[in-house]
């Protein structure tokens, strides 16, 4: 799959199209699909082992579960990019970034869904001129503090409303802290310049569908990458090391933080998994609930795709450290 570009970089647009290389991408696509159909039974045979089968089931499950939310986020982000004028955000958000951060963080509560939806929306906000610090606060808070996720948390921890409160407070706190940190320390050259081509000369409908196509192909590819990693780690990490880790407080907090990153569970479902980790302290469970929606393998791949690798490599460790700290602090006060 080496030759996938449309045209060589230097090709002039007004010149008649250069003679196509023989392996244009539609042909590669047809070839791949044909080969896959023809080699169907040997492939099935290869994947027949139980370990491979459960790997595949988890891989398909993560992808299928996340795609509807990705599509929702992509539709929203395309609508923001095409139909909402940039002046709207200038009026809606406070001019001072230090104030825009908490406002954007709280605004995260209106995006129902999980983290797959928030990445493309945050990308569209940045392209729409929203200060990155505020867009990042939105990116981090939206998957954790929306009503769908908080309701799921309340259902998973019946009789413990303080868990819902702690999750809300810790997630908002960490999201705002990351926004402010970005505002003080972040550099715009870490962010990849907006990848969308300008839409001049195109109607709104065309621009909308072009944005949808681009984001699905782009973020979808990274989603698949993340799903691959998550399925592999779920198959490879032995489950009984958790039992050993639950014994000491510091280790148990770190263990659940790392587990949240590795498992990459959708934020609508992670509360149920946290509730089932009965050996762990409530604070450790809170860490799991705060870290997971902010940074995991799937999200890291998608952030690297949307904002660039230089950004993701700096943003992810800082988010992880702040999320663990914020969750432990909140847990000490509230739980």
């Amino acid at each position: 799959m080496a030759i996938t570009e449309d045209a060589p970089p230097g090709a002039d647009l007004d010149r008649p199209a250069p003679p196509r290389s023989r392996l244009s991408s539609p042909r590669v696509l047809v070839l791949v699909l044909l080969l896959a159909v023809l080699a169907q039974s040997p492939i099935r045979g290869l994947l027949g082992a139980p370990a491979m089968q459960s790997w595949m089931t988890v891989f398909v499950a993560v992808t299928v579960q996340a795609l509807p939310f990705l599509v929702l986020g992509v539709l929203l982000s395309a609508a923001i990019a095409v139909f909402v004028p940039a002046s709207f955000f200038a009026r809606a958000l406070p001019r001072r970034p230090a104030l825009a951060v908490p406002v954007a963080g709280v605004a995260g509560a209106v995006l129902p869904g999980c983290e797959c939806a928030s990445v493309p929306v945050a990308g569209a906000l940045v392209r729409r001129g929203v200060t990155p610090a505020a867009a990042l606060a939105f990116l981090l808070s939206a998957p954790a503090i929306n009503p769908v996720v908080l309701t799921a948390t309340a259902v998973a921890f019946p009789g413990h409303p303080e868990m819902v409160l702690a999750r809300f407070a810790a997630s908002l706190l960490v999201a705002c802290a990351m926004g402010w940190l970005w505002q003080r320390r972040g550099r715009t050259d870490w962010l990849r310049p907006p990848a969308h081509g300008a839409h001049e000369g195109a109607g709104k409908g065309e621009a909308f569908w072009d944005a949808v196509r681009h984001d699905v192909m782009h973020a979808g590819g990274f989603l698949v990458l993340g799903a691959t990693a998550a399925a592999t780690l779920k198959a490879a990490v032995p489950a009984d090391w958790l039992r050993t880790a639950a014994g000491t407080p510091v280790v148990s907090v770190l263990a659940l933080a790392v587990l949240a990153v590795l498992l990459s569970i959708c934020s609508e479902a992670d509360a149920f998994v946290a509730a089932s980790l009965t050996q762990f302290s409530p604070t450790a469970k809170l860490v799991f609930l705060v870290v997971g929606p902010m940074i995991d393998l799937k999200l890291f791949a998608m952030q690297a795709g949307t904002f660039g690798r230089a950004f993701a490599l700096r943003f992810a460790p800082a988010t992880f450290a702040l999320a663990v700290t914020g969750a432990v602090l909140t847990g000490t006060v509230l739980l």
Partner: protein
Amino acid sequence: MNRQAQAAVLFLLGAALLHAGATDLYLRYVKAGLRPFLLASGAVLIAAAVATAWYERRRAGRPRPGHAHPEPRVSWLLLLPLLALILIAPPALGSYSALRTGTALQKPYAYGPLPAGDPVPLSVVDYASRAAYGHGRSLHGRPVRVTGFLALDRAGRPYLVRMALNCCAADAQPVKIALTGELPPVLRPDAWLEVTGTYSPRLTRDPVNNGPVPYLRVTATRPVPAPRDPYDETWNT
């Protein structure tokens, strides 16, 4: 990938989601409640494919405004779930995952009234929690009928398992009942069984997470086809 190829991938992906949502295939991977979302997103993807192809046709011959930037190679990865879903359609999680994961049984807040019937039809989760936490008192000594799939641990001990699911198969967790008594001579892992039996006070611990695994004294078994929804989704409600 150029735009025609992208339109084709979007179309196939949308069609695969529609296919999974229209049949019971999706129940192997995600919770039943996601169905409308799957169908809607499949329709959106197909619309995006049609729109892409249509605008590309209209644009044919005219230069594209701005620069045409090709999509990154990572888009090709979208073919993987597509092929996995259409060609292979991996089965729902079974005994392999069940034995690697600890039982997810948790103490219930109350026991509902027993359903009518003799033997009493109970889910794996319902029997396990009544047996493990209520010492079987809420069963009133009545025989029960439970359906699940078989899993055999390394020593060959049989368990009746149902995977409980909250959102998708990545978060599925097993609830296990250990079987004793009259078992069929040949036990095949992953085979679905309807087991009739009575409460046994014996209790063992799951080697993975030390969770409780109650026993069931089996009096009769009957092989049954896999249910429409292989997962127990009662925790969703």
